[in-house]
């Protein structure tokens, strides 16, 4: 069996909610049932067959081709299998996903991995704002799983993050780890302004140059942190630049946000 492959026929003007297309929801469905799945595009309803050219039958692996950022909620609430997006994708990638793997070959827009509970999401291009955060109005961000961003990420990476790990190979925007409750963020590039704003707990490792910190962070004395050896080993299991991650040298360590419990830490490596 070959993977179920969906090739977008033409770039849509409005967003398409792709959440019905997860391996767990497609399991056991016949080809006819799959091609008849209905989607709203603006005020018009279409079948999957109208929007995509469908080939392959293996629903445990879904390949999306000719994609664009109008395709939102890809892999939402997915709990098994694999999705490969051969192109860009829209907001809410892997929203509330529990298990499985999503790979995006291009870029994605905002709210990727929001409220992620498990599994792995790899974005080979850049990611927008609010990766691993909570949806608007919600109070709990990412609470498990792993997100790998090969490019840069936007503002508020890991906002309200509670657990899990985000790895960003490039630079990240302002307010990284804002309101973070726990978990780990590793940024190999530089972080923007106001890193760790309102952070309660959690760890942010930054490979780029140390910069001025919010006034509610304090620099702590230099110590040898044993957990970094384990963490380094874990990060190096991810291929690419991460495989050369050196966790043995700490340039500076800040703790805070002292206005909010102050048990978080930002370590410049």
């Amino acid at each position, binding site marked *: 069996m070959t993977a179920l492959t969906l090739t977008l026929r033409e770039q849509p003007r409005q967003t398409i909610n792709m959440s019905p297309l997860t391996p767990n929801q497609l399991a056991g469905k016949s080809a006819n049932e799959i091609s008849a799945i209905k989607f709203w595009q603006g005020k018009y309803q279409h079948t999957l067959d109208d929007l995509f050219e469908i080939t392959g039958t293996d629903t445990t692996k879904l390949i999306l081709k000719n994609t664009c950022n109008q395709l939102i909620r890809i892999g939402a609430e997915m709990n098994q299998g694999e999705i490969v997006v051969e192109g860009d994708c829209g907001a809410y990638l892997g929203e509330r996903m529990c298990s499985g793997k999503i790979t995006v070959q291009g870029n994605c827009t905002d709210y990727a991995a929001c409220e992620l509970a498990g599994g792995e999401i790899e974005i080979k291009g850049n990611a927008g704002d609010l990766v691993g955060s909570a949806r608007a109005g919600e109070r709990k961000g990412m609470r498990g799983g792993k997100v790998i961003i090969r490019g840069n990420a936007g503002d508020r990476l890991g906002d309200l993050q509670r*657990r*899990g*790990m985000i790895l960003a190979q490039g630079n990240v925007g302002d307010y990284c780890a804002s309101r973070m409750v*726990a978990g*780990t963020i590793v940024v190999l590039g530089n972080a923007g302004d106001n890193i760790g704003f309102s952070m309660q*707990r959690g*760890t942010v490792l930054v490979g780029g140059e140390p910069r001025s910190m919010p006034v509610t962070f304090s620099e702590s004395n230099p*110590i*040898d*942190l*044993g*957990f970094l*050896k*384990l*963490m380094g*080993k*874990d990060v190096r*299991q991810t291929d690419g630049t991460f495989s050369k991650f050196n966790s043995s040298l700490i340039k500076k360590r800040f703790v805070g946000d002292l206005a909010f419990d102050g*048990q978080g*830490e930002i370590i410049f490596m």
Partner: protein
Amino acid sequence: MNINGIEIDDTFAEAFGMTATRLLITAHNKKWCRNAAESMTGFATSVIGCGVEAGIEREWSKDETPDGRNGISVLLFGMSTSDLAKQFEKRVGQCVLTCPTTAIFSGIEDGKPIPLGKRLRFFGDGHQISKMISGKRYWRVPVMDGEFLCEESAGSCKAVGGGNFLVLAEKLPQALQACEHSIEKMRKLPNVIMPFPGGVVRSGSKVGSKYKSLIASTNDAFCPTLTGQVKTELTKDIGAVLEIVIDGLTENDVAQAMTVGIRAACSGGANSSIKKITAGNYGGKLGKHHFHLHELLK
């Protein structure tokens, strides 16, 4: 049956089911690993009086340990996981947490988890930090030399405790020498400990006592000083008896250790003043694991 002219008694060692775990202690160097491990496994010769039987299993190289430092694994044996849990809190809290530079990890993945950092973390007084790394939860407890890193829980497994053999000799120095040689060989084996001082016990016991408050008392049938007074198992030429007790993770581990130990004890031959090897049992009624010496050594 005899080995190198030394008689092997046609009897069996009787051992019991226990619960065990392995903990891996790492530190700045081997010296501090050993300081912590020896402290933690001190006063742990018998579950009867110490609550747990514990000993050092082996040294681990930097390549083998999770944090890339020198390590030592210790094995702990108790009658149940709840007994082990009580001992964990005390021994890790007082002997490993307190020892400079140490960290502690679970050395057994599966089985019923026994809380480790889950309770010790409270020493951090709210400043402790939890970290999930590669699917395992660790606790970082701030201490005066930096951080004490501790895995949240340790796995446990069914085990075998109380494998044993007795070395009967004409003279005490020769009995001691034979036992030391046995222990040296047995300590090279994985998954076993010999929990008594130096691995050897001189106060072998029988069940019960003339004193109602005691559940065990001296094994008078093997005491050379009581020959002539009580029913003895010793011939006239025996002047000293020493016992080696073995706890292992599996029946096979205990059997292998007994085999290696007995062969080492007999390696000096009949001229070494070792006269006989026998084993302790309770008639087969108390322990479900029976190690017949002739079967082990055939």
